[in-house]
């Protein structure tokens, strides 16, 4: 249950049997062909997979470096890669006889994905969301409610994602017998990071096949953003053994990694325990977890999936950090040049990928995991562009 020294099961005893039951349930499901084929069918018929691999012809021309390709998770139903995992875990919950789902959400994307699968599978759904986030993301609250979920404000701490996660876990502790905790990223106690990776690796599996089909070779480099890190692990995992493929995870540098306003967990954090696993995290010298910051709500998390911590220590994946401003510029550039308005999270990957592509030759290629679409970020963008006094 570890990735090197990282991971583990740092949870109250009350949850241990639930986690053991989960591991058994997952191990059974994953070798059950009926489970696998229902999941495959739902991913195709409901979620809209496979998602395309788009050649970014204009960006590639402008950068005049490597050829840039986009894996289009923005086209998955509900607007991001989150649904891959939510579908997988909800089917697992059903198979394990749990009729209730509980989850936390930051900006609302994972909450919407969870509420969506709960609706489709006729399950009860509770979503914890920081009271502050609920105000900032009213429309996602409405989406979850339309989908039949109950959204509960987390009123502790800074009233954002970390606190919502604490509350969701507290709820789970009290209701583990009939409730499935549907975690949204490759974080949490074992076996969650493995479960989420298993349901997200379809990103990398499809990409590998498509990339070879379209270009005849593997990408020179793959870039994905990292908050908890599920889209990145999903993309990277099938390429880990391809040692010639450079893998780059991109964290949020917020106002800069030398300020206190960032979410660059691997770049600037230290080892510690958060939400059940040992990993890198942002904390003070007393081990109190500090508040991260990023313009992108999905990257605004003080921890990171333990497998990323491991891959960083192994030097298999390189972790970089991109600031708010760099991400905004990349978002605008991608929109203007390729006709795709991506999520602010994904824009971090785009920004780093442009730097990476510049260093490379025209025979080389860079693959970006475009993890989500930008519709949810329009309010943030509107406000930012207004502040900049820059009408786009």
């Amino acid at each position: 249950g570890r990735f090197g020294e990282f991971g583990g099961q740092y949870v109250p005893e009350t949850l241990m049997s639930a986690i053991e039951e989960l591991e058994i349930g997952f191990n059974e499901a994953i070798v059950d062909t009926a489970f696998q084929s229902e999941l495959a069918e739902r991913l195709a018929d409901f979620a809209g997979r496979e998602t395309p691999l788009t050649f970014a012809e204009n960006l590639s021309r402008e950068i005049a470096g490597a050829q840039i390709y986009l894996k289009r998770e923005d086209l998955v139903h509900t607007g991001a890669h989150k649904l891959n995992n939510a579908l997988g875990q909800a089917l697992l919950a059903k198979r394990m006889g749990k009729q209730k789902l509980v989850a936390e959400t930051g900006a609302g994307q994972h909450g919407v994905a969870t509420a969506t699968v709960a609706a489709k599978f006729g399950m009860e759904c509770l979503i914890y969301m920081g009271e502050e986030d609920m105000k900032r993301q009213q429309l996602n609250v409405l989406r979850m409610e339309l989908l039949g979920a109950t959204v509960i404000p987390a009123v502790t701490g800074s009233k954002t994602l970390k606190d919502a996660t604490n509350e969701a876990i507290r709820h789970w502790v009290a209701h583990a017998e009939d409730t499935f905790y549907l975690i949204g990223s490759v974080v949490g106690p074992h076996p969650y990071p493995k479960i989420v990776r298993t349901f997200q690796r379809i990103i990398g599996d499809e990409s590998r096949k498509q990339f070879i089909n379209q270009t005849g070779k593997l990408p020179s480099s793959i870039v994905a953003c990292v908050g908890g890190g599920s889209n990145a692990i999903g993309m990277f995992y099938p390429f880990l053994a391809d040692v010639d493929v450079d893998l780059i995870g991109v964290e949020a540098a917020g106002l800069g990694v030398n300020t206190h306003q960032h979410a660059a967990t691997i770049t600037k954090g230290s080892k510690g325990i958060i939400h059940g696993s040992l990993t890198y995290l942002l904390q003070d010298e007393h081990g109190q977890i500090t508040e991260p910051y990023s313009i992108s709500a999905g990257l605004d998390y003080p921890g990171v999936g333990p497998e990323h911590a491991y891959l960083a220590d192994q030097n298999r994946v390189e972790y970089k950090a991109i600031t708010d401003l760099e991400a905004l510029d990349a978002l605008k550039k991608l929109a203007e040049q390729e006709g795709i308005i991506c999520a602010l999270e994904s824009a971090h990957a785009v920004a780093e990928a442009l730097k990476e592509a510049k260093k490379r030759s025209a025979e080389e290629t860079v693959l970006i995991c475009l993890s989500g679409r930008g519709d949810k970020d329009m309010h943030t963008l509107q406000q930012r562009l207004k502040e900049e006094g820059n009408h786009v």
Partner: protein
Amino acid sequence: MSERLRKAVTKEKLFIPFITAGDPTIEATIELALSLERAGADVIELGIPYSDPLADGPVIQAASKRALTAGMTFAKALEMVSKLRERGLNAPVILFTYANPLLQYGFTQFVNEASAFGVDGILVPDLPFEESEEFGDICAKEDLALISLVAPTSKERVEKIASSAKGFLYCVSSLGVTGTRNELHPDLKQFLQVVKNSASIPCVVGFGVSQADQVEEINRYADGVVVGSAIVKQIGSLTNELSQPESRSAAVAKVEAFVKQLHQPVASR
């Protein structure tokens, strides 16, 4: 295990109150801890505040926040125990904290200092059996008891946990986080029977105990109770009085009276 703790747990029915270190000030905690002993505490559980107290309910979360805001740290909490010993506290002290701040302080440094400063045990709610080997070994070297928890959901896990548990076994009375509850779990009795079959040390019940009659009922099946949120709530309502030196004694007396009344069923046996 320290001699102090070994002796304390021989008592028939243990009464273990919990307070948060530094809520609202170090001075107040010292006075409160001494008053708990006067009110009949057999063991005192002292929480070191943490930013993300996953296993705690809203009452203890709020206390943690107050204590953190007032500047409480691991080092200060350890020093406080040393001061309590100087002030004549005899009851064993169990520190309650979370895995991450413990890890940052350093397992060995913590155990060495805790032991030197008069701490008798430690309880880490997010360090379950499977993750506690290394830390348990370090504690054992210094005779510090690493207190284990069992829950109604522990089932087959009870035996392995109980067989290696030290000091006393903390039985979680109901699922969920710490906090006061009006009703006890209906299967509590049965659960305790299972636990007691496996344990050679006292089995005390915590989580949700808030009334004297609950204490009495639990003591019919268990070897004692832990009372946390009910006391911490009282302390929280007296924050201002406890913070000011001139009003502190009166406020401490109020808490002491409340705890005495909770302890009544044990004391009157």
